[in-house]
C-alpha cells in the first residue's frame, strides 16, 4: 500500500523524469513518432520558461537601469552584480528573514494541515463535509480579496482583532498597530499565509490518510498502541511521502511569497525591515529600476530553491531505490 502512494507521489515530483533519463538510449536510425510528438511540449517549455530564464541570467550580468529599459545598450559587467550582492549586509538580512519566515510558516502550515486531516478522518460525515467545504472556500478565495479582509481584521483603528483582544480584562490592545513593527508584521503575514495554504496540506494529507489500511491500525490497536502512538508510529510513517512533497512545495511557495507581503506593506510600511525576498526584488527592479541587480537576486533565489529541493530529490531517489 505504501508502495503505491510513494509511486504516485513520485510521479508528481519533478524528480521522476531523472529516472527515465537513466535508461540506456536506444539508438535508432529513424526518428520515431513519439519523439516528434515531444517537440511541441519541449518547444513550449523552452519558450515559456527557457527564454525568461536566459534573459534573466543575461540581465543579471549587465548594468541594466531605466536608460536601458528605454533602449540604451546595456554594459556587460560579468559577475559584478553578484559580488555587490554578496557583500551587501541588507541582502543577507533579507535572505535570513525570508528563510526564517519560510521555515516557520511551512512547518506550522504542515502541523495545522495534518491535524485537520486527522480530524477529518475522526469526525462524522456532516462535520467532515462542513470542514471540507470551509477549507475549499478558503482555498478558492482570490488572494487580493482575502488580503483586503485580513487587513481590515488587523486594522489598528477599527479591526475586529484589536476590538476582541481589547475586551479581555487587563489587555490593552486599543489602537495596537500590528503592521508597524517587523515582528508583529510577520506574525500577521504568517497567519495569513498559513490560512491560505492549510487547505492544500489538509486535503493532501487526508488523501494520504484514507490509504492507510484499517487492518494495520487494528493490529496495532490489538497490540496496545493508543491513538497518539498509532499516529506517531503507524500513520505518519505511512503518509510520509505525501508529507514530504507537501512540505517541499510549501517551502518553495513560502520562500517566494509576494502578494501577501506587498499588500501588507501597502497597509503598513514599505521600510526595508519589512521586506522578504519577493518584495526586495520588486523594489530593486520595478521600484528603483535596477533590473540588473534585481535579476541577480532572482537567480540567487532560484539557486536557493534548488538547494532546498535538492535534499528532497535525493531522499526521494534513495527511497525509490529501496526494494
Amino acid at each position, binding site marked *: 500500500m505504501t508502495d503505491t502512494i510513494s509511486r504516485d507521489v513520485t510521479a508528481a515530483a519533478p524528480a521522476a523524469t531523472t529516472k527515465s533519463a537513466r535508461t540506456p538510449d536506444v539508438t535508432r536510425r529513424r526518428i520515431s513518432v513519439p519523439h*516528434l510528438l515531444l517537440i511541441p511540449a519541449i518547444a513550449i517549455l523552452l519558450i515559456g520558461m527557457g527564454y525568461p530564464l536566459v534573459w534573466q541570467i543575461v540581465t543579471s550580468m549587465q548594468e541594466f537601469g531605466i536608460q536601458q529599459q528605454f533602449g540604451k545598450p546595456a554594459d556587460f559587467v560579468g559577475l559584478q552584480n553578484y559580488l555587490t550582492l554578496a557583500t551587501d549586509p541588507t541582502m543577507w538580512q533579507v535572505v535570513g528573514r525570508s528563510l526564517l519566515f519560510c521555515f516557520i510558516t511551512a512547518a506550522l502550515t504542515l502541523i495545522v494541515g495534518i491535524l485537520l486531516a486527522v480530524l477529518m478522518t475522526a469526525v462524522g460525515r456532516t462535520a467532515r463535509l462542513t470542514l471540507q467545504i470551509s477549507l475549499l472556500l478558503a482555498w478558492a478565495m482570490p488572494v487580493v480579496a482575502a488580503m483586503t479582509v485580513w487587513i481590515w481584521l488587523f486594522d489598528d483603528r477599527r479591526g475586529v482583532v484589536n476590538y476582541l483582544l481589547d475586551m479581555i480584562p487587563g489587555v490593552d490592545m486599543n489602537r495596537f498597530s500590528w503592521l508597524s513593527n517587523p515582528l508583529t508584521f510577520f506574525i500577521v503575514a504568517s497567519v495569513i499565509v498559513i490560512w491560505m495554504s492549510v487547505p492544500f496540506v489538509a486535503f493532501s494529507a487526508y488523501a494520504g490518510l484514507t490509504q492507510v489500511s484499517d487492518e494495520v491500525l487494528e493490529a496495532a490497536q490489538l497490540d496496545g498502541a493508543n491513538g497518539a502512538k498509532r499516529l506517531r508510529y503507524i500513520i505518519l510513517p505511512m503518509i510520509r511521502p505525501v508529507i514530504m512533497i507537501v512540505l517541499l512545495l510549501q517551502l518553495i511557495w513560502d520562500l517566494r511569497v509576494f502578494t501577501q507581503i506587498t499588500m501588507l506593506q501597502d497597509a503598513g510600511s514599505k521600510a526595508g525591515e519589512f521586506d522578504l525576498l519577493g518584495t526586495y526584488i520588486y*523594489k530593486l527592479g520595478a521600484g528603483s529600476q535596477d533590473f540588473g541587480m534585481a535579476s541577480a537576486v532572482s537567480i540567487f533565489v532560484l539557486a536557493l530553491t534548488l538547494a532546498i529541493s535538492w535534499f528532497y530529490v535525493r531522499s526521494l531517489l534513495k527511497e525509490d531505490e529501496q526494494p
Partner: protein
Amino acid sequence: MKRKYAVAAIATAAALVLAGCSSTGDAADDGSAEGQDITLWLMGGDTPDALRDYLKSEYADATGGTLTIEEQGWGDAVAKLTTALPDAANTPDVTEIGNTWSPTFTNAGAFTDLSDMYEELGGDKLLKSFVEVGEVDGAQYALPYYFGSRYNFYRKDVWAAAGKEVPTTLAEFGDTVKALRTDSQSGFYLGGSDWRNGISWIFANGGELAVKDGDEWVGALSSDESVEGLEQFQELFTGASNAPVTEFDSTPWVNINDNDATGKPEAATIIAPGWAHWSIGDLAPDPADATKTVATWNDDVFGTFVLPGVDGGVAPVFAGGSNIAVSAASENQAGAKELVKIIFSEEYQTMLGENGLGPANLDYASSLGDDQFAKALIESAAGSKLTPAAPGWAAVEGAGILEEFFGKVSGGGDVAELAAEYDEKLDKLLN
C-alpha cells in the same frame, strides 16, 4: 501514415512557436488623429469625474476616436510606468506623472518632444518650475498638468477651547500643537513616514534633500540645516502626533472630521494638499449613495492657515502636482497631441482651477477663486519647493527610501547618524 502524423506534429509545433512570436500589428502613424482610440493614465483620484467626462467628450468631438481613461494608484505608478512606457503594445498614449518623476523619465527618453507645440499650449505662461523638470537640453517633454500645495486645516472649536491662536512662527506652531495633544487626539496628525509633509521642516530650516555637486547629485540630509529641521520634525512627531511611525500615505482628513463612533475629532490640526478641503467638514449621509458620507465645510468649526516659516512668513512646503506627457512609444502620436491641446485649452484649465487644482497656465489662476482655500493655496504655493531634479529621483521614490528614513527618524533614532546613512543610499540612486 506515420510520416503524416509526424509532419502534422511539426506543423502544429511550428504554428505554436510562430503564434508566440508574431509581432503585434504596427499601425502606421499617418499623422492624422482621425479616429484614433487612445488611452490616458491619470494618477490617483485627484482629477474629478466631471473633468474626465469633459476630456472624453471633447476628444470624441475632435477626432471621432475614443479616449479611455485608466486610473493608476500613486503607490505603484513608477513601477507601472517603467514597464509600460517602453512597450508600444501596452503604453498609455498620454500619461500624468508625478512632477518629481519627470526628470527620470524625460532623461530616459520615455516621452515625445513637445517643443513644437510649447508656444501654442501656453509657452511662458506655464508654471516654470514644472516645465523645467520636464526639459532636456531646452526641449520640452513633460509639461505641467496641475499644481497643488499643502496648508494646514485646524479645528477652530478645539483650538478655542484650549485658548490657542493661529501661530506665526514654526516654533510657535510646534509648541501649540504639542499642547493640544491628548491620548485620544493628535495636536497635529502626521504619519511618521510621511516625508512629503515632513520635508517642509528641512526646507524651512534652509536644508535640502540633495544638491548638485559638479555633475553629480549627492544627498544633503546630513547638512547642518537639514539635521536641524529633522530634529524639529522628530520632536514634533513625538510630541504632537498619535499616528503610527510607519504611516506614509495617510488620508489625514478622516482624523480632523468627527469620528462617527465617538463624535469627536482625532486630530486638532492636519496638513494636507488644498483639494482635501472637499473631504473636510460636517459629515452627513450622501443622498445619492447611502453607504457614503459627504462633508460640508463649516466655517465655525474648521479653519485654514499656511505653515509658518522659522522667522514668520510662509514655510516652503512640498510643491505637489503633476506633469503630463505623451509616450514616445505610442502609436497614436497625433491623437495624443490632440488630447494635450484639449488639456491646455482655456476651458479645461479653468475647470481645473474651479476644482481647486492649480492650473498649469498661470493666466487662468484666477479661476481658483478668492475664497480662503484659493488664498491659502496661492500663498503656500508661492514659497513651495520641488524635490531635486536628479535623473534618479524616481528610483529614490520607487524604492521607498524616504519613507523608511522618516519612519526611523520619527521612531526616535539618532538624526545625524541616520541622515549620514541615508545620504549614502541616496548617492547610489540619484545619478
